[in-house]
């Protein structure tokens, strides 16, 4: 446990709070990087996902493409893009935006798909235009799953941003690689603990948000399993907001 004491001392060491390698600065870099990446990925994935979810077209293509994207090792993508565009922050931004798209896209269209068709038909029957259906019915009801997708993308980006320090002078991951080079285990361990804490904190925040965005009138168990059905329905699963993996 002495190793952990050293790491905590490293985190608390005043010298690590000044200069260009200060912990708050690295943390801010990490967070800004994550935020920008998520905004860029969302700008592409959310409209596309809504389009797929609303029209039901292109779903097969989206599933195949994002499935393929997920199988690609992030380190390979990072290093390859870094060779193309040169060492620096551009490579991580490009690579991570690409990686963040599949979960957000999936969150957007599965959010629409999980809505009871009768609800959408009813909205159409009372005279809503297609745009109104999207805005007033599908977007609010699909929000919990979209947030689930964003949650998954965020954790992915936080983790990969750490790895991105391998190709760019960026974020908390620098401590891991700097410590590795100088054989300073306290620095590596301290840096790792900071990243883990950050990831867990964000996971907690997202869990709260996800619970919060379920529209009023839609309780967690509405649309649950009908009597006699054996397989669990997608709806009962999708609205299980405490669910760590399925909704993510």
């Amino acid at each position, binding site marked *: 446990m002495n*190793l*952990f004491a050293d*790491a905590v001392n490293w985190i608390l060491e005043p010298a690590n709070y000044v200069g260009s390698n200060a912990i708050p600065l690295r943390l801010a870099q990490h967070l800004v990087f994550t935020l920008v990446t998520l905004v860029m990925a969302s700008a592409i994935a959310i409209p596309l996902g809504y389009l797929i979810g609303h029209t039901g077209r292109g779903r097969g293509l989206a599933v195949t493409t994002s499935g393929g994207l*997920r*199988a*690609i*090792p*992030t*380190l*390979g*993508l*990072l*290093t*390859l893009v*870094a*060779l*193309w565009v040169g060492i620096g922050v551009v490579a991580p931004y490009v690579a991570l935006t690409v*990686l963040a798209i599949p*979960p957000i896209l*999936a969150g957007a269209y599965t959010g629409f798909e999980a809505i009871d068709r009768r609800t959408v038909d009813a909205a159409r029957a009372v005279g809503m235009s297609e745009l109104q259906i999207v805005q007033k019915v599908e977007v609010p009801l699909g929000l919990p799953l979209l947030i689930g997708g964003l949650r*998954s993308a965020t*954790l*992915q980006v*936080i*983790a*990969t941003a*750490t*790895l991105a320090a*391998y*190709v760019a002078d960026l974020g908390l*991951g620098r401590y*891991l*690689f700097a410590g*590795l080079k100088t054989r300073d*285990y306290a620095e*590596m*361990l301290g*840096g*790792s*603990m900071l*990243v*883990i804490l950050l*990831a*867990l904190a964000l*996971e907690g925040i997202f869990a709260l948000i996800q619970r919060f965005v379920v529209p009023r009138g839609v309780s967690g168990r509405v649309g649950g399993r009908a009597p006699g059905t*054996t*397989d*669990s329905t*997608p709806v009962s*699963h999708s609205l299980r907001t405490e*669910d*760590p*993996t*399925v909704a*993510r």
Partner: protein
Amino acid sequence: MTWVLANLGLIWARTLDHVVLSLPPIVLCFLIALPLGWLARRYRISRGIILTGAGLLYAVPSLPLFFVLPAVIGTGLRSPLNVIIALTLYGVALMVRVVSDGLDSVDADVRQSASAVGYSAWSRFWQVELPLSGPVLLAGLRVVAVSTVSLVTVGAVIGVQSLGSLFTDGFQRGIQAEIIAGLVVTVGLALVFDGGLVLAGRVLMPWNRRAAPSKPNVPVELRAT
């Protein structure tokens, strides 16, 4: 292409390293998740603890975990054991949920019928519930396999050799072909593992063959870093 042809031996050696690192986590996580998943489904309290713990564990990024594990279990920083244990933990985190959902997917009527014709709880689990939840378990294992093969590459940055070493080496020496070769072989290996699992599923669950592989409810998200 020239690089690839000149280094086929190296690529093969790294592929073997990769297999050695990725097979144990896939097998181990299944063996560990089975009792844990059963426990998670059985009691309300254990369900909360196990599933919450699994969710949190799954949220821990892989690279920091590779650094923290040696301090916890006393292995060397560059020991392949770190990678194997870390990936087993991720696999367990994902599979307990799947096992619990899989057992849940067994029709209550079937379970009661099994008890009525005299199955003990133990034999009912092995002979009725486990086989019936097979398709769900298989789908979960496929996710674990693809995720694990991809995650092994991350170990390369701390010096644990795998196909990921082709990324770090190619990056440092500026050889694009090496990185591309690494990407292709890693994805290929993931496909081979996936295919192997599908095949094993056909052999072990012949009654399931006619149905087109309708995807049961499994986590679609997989950890890639």
